[in-house]
């Protein structure tokens, strides 16, 4: 290889999606995150002798919903569980229950946009059900690791893509798209910090034009979108450097160190493992019929892509705004609820205010839509007051701030704070006349057609009325004068 070789990147992702169930995959143990170590561990997860697994129906239903959402060709009428055998302290049974040979979901697809903005289909090879492992705590002790089994047995679906992704950017786009699907389905809380959504990336490079794949490395457990991109890019760089200097890529598992921005081999995975998969004799085949699958269809919500079309075409929202709203499940819900209740106000105004003042308040208070600092009724009231001309946009901003964290409606605030627009034309006329009297030369310029002067007068009126004047009315009065 020489330095003029053009390289092509091939990436496949394995996304571990924790399912949002009340209880674990094979026992009625609490799955709530953040409990004190080992307090959410039943005898099954502690691998007490004689304990046996019983399958959580919710997991099956959630996996089917995911399959439906990605248009999977196969939602297995009969799927089976296999044991993956290995010793590790966070996996007390000495094996993980997973689905090797007959996964519940196979052959789905997902469309993403490549760097040129063109649609690109990413094939999903499979999504299978498996148990999560516990956690090892390393920094607490010098010579020991502490084992916390709370996460052990939490249900996961592992979503395995084909190696169809050709850049770190595409990988992140795909991962975000999957994230959006599982959160919209409500089958995963999508919390990356808590590890509910994590990703392994298989990365290889090959000279452009070569058909066979290069040797791949597997980057383990990357838990942020940003790190996925950085880790893959740094790994591509490493592989290129290696190959261009005459070296060879070793097939191995590597860990991304975000502090040093480098990848390094995982020592625990060095000893060639032979997982000795075989069907779990404690579990029988999971058999479902088409009616069971069809019944899950009712739980498949409208996805962002469809929402964007509805927003842009039906509601005339700007494409960029539509995208932002559609991709945030809670924001979209809030928006849809709002639009449903609007009378005079336009959806477009709602979108503007949602992404403007409303989002600014969310950010500055560091809260989420679902924290309900402002409810739909309040927001609708505000938009209607604006549409009816009761308040100006500027006042609207004041009102939304005043509503925040209260249950007060716009009407109430306008009344108690006297923020309604000065709609009494007599009162407004008196004010305008007075300003004209005090600014004769500017008025003359206005009359001669200097439109800057119009803004000047509106500004003066607003100052006097503390923003309560209706600019259109001011214009009428000026023209008459």
């Amino acid at each position: 290889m020489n330095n003029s070789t053009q390289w092509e990147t091939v990436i496949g992702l394995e996304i571990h999606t924790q399912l949002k169930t009340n209880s674990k995959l094979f026992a009625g143990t609490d799955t709530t995150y953040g409990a004190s170590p080992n307090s959410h561990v039943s005898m099954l997860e502690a691998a007490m002798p004689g304990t046996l697994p019983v399958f959580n129906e919710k997991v099956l239903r959630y996996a089917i919903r995911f399959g439906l959402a990605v248009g999977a060709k196969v939602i297995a009428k009969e799927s089976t569980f296999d044991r993956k055998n290995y010793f590790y302290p966070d996996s007390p049974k000495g094996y993980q229950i997973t689905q090797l040979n007959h996964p519940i979901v196979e052959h789905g697809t997902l469309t993403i946009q490549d760097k040129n903005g063109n649609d690109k289909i990413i094939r999903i090879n499979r999504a299978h059900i498996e148990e999560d492992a516990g956690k090892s705590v390393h920094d607490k002790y010098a010579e020991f690791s502490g084992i916390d089994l709370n996460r052990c047995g939490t249900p996961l679906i592992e979503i395995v893509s084909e190696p169809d992704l050709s850049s770190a950017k595409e990988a992140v786009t795909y991962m975000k798209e999957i994230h959006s699907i599982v959160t919209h389905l409500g089958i995963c809380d999508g919390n990356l910090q808590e590890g509910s959504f994590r990703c392994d990336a298989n990365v290889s490079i090959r000279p452009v034009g070569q058909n066979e794949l290069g040797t791949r490395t597997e980057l383990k457990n990357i838990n942020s979108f940003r790190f996925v991109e950085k880790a893959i890019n740094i790994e591509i760089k490493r592989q290129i450097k290696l190959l261009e200097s005459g070296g060879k890529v070793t097939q191995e598992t590597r860990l991304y160190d975000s502090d040093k921005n480098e990848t390094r081999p995982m020592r625990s995975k060095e000893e060639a493992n032979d997982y000795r998969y075989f069907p779990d004799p404690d579990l029988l085949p999971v058999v479902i019929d088409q009616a069971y699958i069809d019944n899950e269809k009712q739980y498949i919500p409208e996805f962002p892509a469809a929402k964007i079309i509805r927003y842009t075409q039906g509601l005339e929202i700007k494409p960029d705004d539509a995208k932002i709203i559609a991709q945030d499940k809670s924001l979209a819900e809030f928006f849809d609820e709002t639009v449903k209740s609007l009378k005079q106000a336009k959806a477009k105004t709602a979108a503007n205010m949602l992404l403007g003042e409303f989002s600014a308040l969310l950010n500055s208070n560091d809260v989420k839509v679902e924290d309900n600092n402002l409810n739909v009724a309040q927001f609708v009231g505000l938009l209607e007051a604006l549409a009816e001309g009761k308040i100006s946009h500027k006042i609207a901003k004041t009102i939304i701030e005043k509503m925040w964290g209260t249950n007060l409606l716009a009407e109430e605030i306008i009344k108690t704070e006297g923020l309604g627009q000065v709609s009494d034309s007599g009162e407004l006329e008196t004010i305008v006349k007075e300003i004209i009297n005090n600014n004769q030369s500017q008025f003359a310029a206005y009359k001669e057609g200097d439109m800057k002067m119009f803004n000047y007068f509106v500004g003066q009126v607003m100052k006097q009325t503390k923003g309560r004047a209706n600019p259109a009315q001011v214009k009428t009065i000026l023209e008459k004068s």
Partner: protein
Amino acid sequence: MLINRKEVEQIAVLAKLHVSESEIDAIVTSLDSIVEMINHISEVNTDNTKPMANPMDAVQRLRADEVTETSIKEKLLSMATQTDEDYFLVPTVVE
């Protein structure tokens, strides 16, 4: 020999068992005789036979997604040899 010393050593690594120098030959011999016995299964054609994983001609039952277990942390930790506060302890796990 149907199974050799090296294979036995590899199996021991996978199974996390120690095989001492003094016993390995005897183990190889005994495993070899078992493999010889096992190998008879290749005598019958099974091309059209479905594997039987379990004698139960039944399908997996489903459990409702309900929390039925309560914390048994103290009990579990009291059974382990090495613990600290809420953790089971093991010699440092290398990642």
